[in-house]
């Protein structure tokens, strides 16, 4: 699931993160093994991919991102990522203009279809990306622009 390189950078970052929120060291230890905080703190897609040890993503029509053209509220924007290919190791959802681009990373087993949806926050109108990382190392992506509008009375 992780290369040794990631594990090292992760544990340092997670330890710092947990120290910041005042959590006990044993907890930090328990979580450090999995959560890739470097990837989730990366400002943009390129840095997030680097933190995941993944190649530069290539646009592909085999990957689809589902999202509305327009969202009445950026606090809840439905986004789905899907890949019509076998051997999907990871499916990612990223929001270009959020302070940290990576929103979610899913690791489906063979028993789960590479088609997962969730809901994300958009600080402003932005491109959203779906990225598929395949077992053979290929990294493919699709993108869609979501316009966030101001609903209600704005008061």
């Amino acid at each position, binding site marked *: 699931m992780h290369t040794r390189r990631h594990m090292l950078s992760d544990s340092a970052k997670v330890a710092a993160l947990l120290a910041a929120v005042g959590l006990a060291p044993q907890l930090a230890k328990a979580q450090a093994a999995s959560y890739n905080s470097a990837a989730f703190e990366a400002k943009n897609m390129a840095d997030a991919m680097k933190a995941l040890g993944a190649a530069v993503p290539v646009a592909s029509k085999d990957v689809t991102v589902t999202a509305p053209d327009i969202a009445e509220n950026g606090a809840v924007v439905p986004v789905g990522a899907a890949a019509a290919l076998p051997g999907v190791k990871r499916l990612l959802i990223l929001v270009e203009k959020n302070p940290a681009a990576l929103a979610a990373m899913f690791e489906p*087993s063979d028993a789960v279809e590479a088609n997962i949806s969730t809901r994300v926050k958009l600080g402003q109108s932005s491109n959203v990306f779906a990225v598929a990382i395949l077992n053979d190392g290929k990294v493919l992506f699709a993108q869609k622009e979501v316009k966030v509008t101001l609903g209600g009375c704005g008061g």
Partner: protein
Amino acid sequence: MTDPMRIRAQVAGDKATVRVLMAHEMETGQRKDAAGKVIPAWFIQEVSATHNGKPVLSAQWGPSISKNPFMQFSLKGAKVGDKIAITWVDNKGEKRTDEATAS
């Protein structure tokens, strides 16, 4: 104190659509309260799913997942009566598992 999830697993043909709602603040750590103090980040970081006890999906989330998160996926080979369990762990180390029966 954590509140229960709502998990629905609906079987159609040889797969089940699993929809999960989790009760969580998903605080980004970027917002300030009325007094101008930063509200600390508090969000679910890891989610995992099992099918009759067997791990089928794991996920890592950042704080930009919406409050009271929703997640949907399709589980192959699921039958009516199968047990689907979801577990989340947040950045404070709080953890919750709930289970549903596919219908």
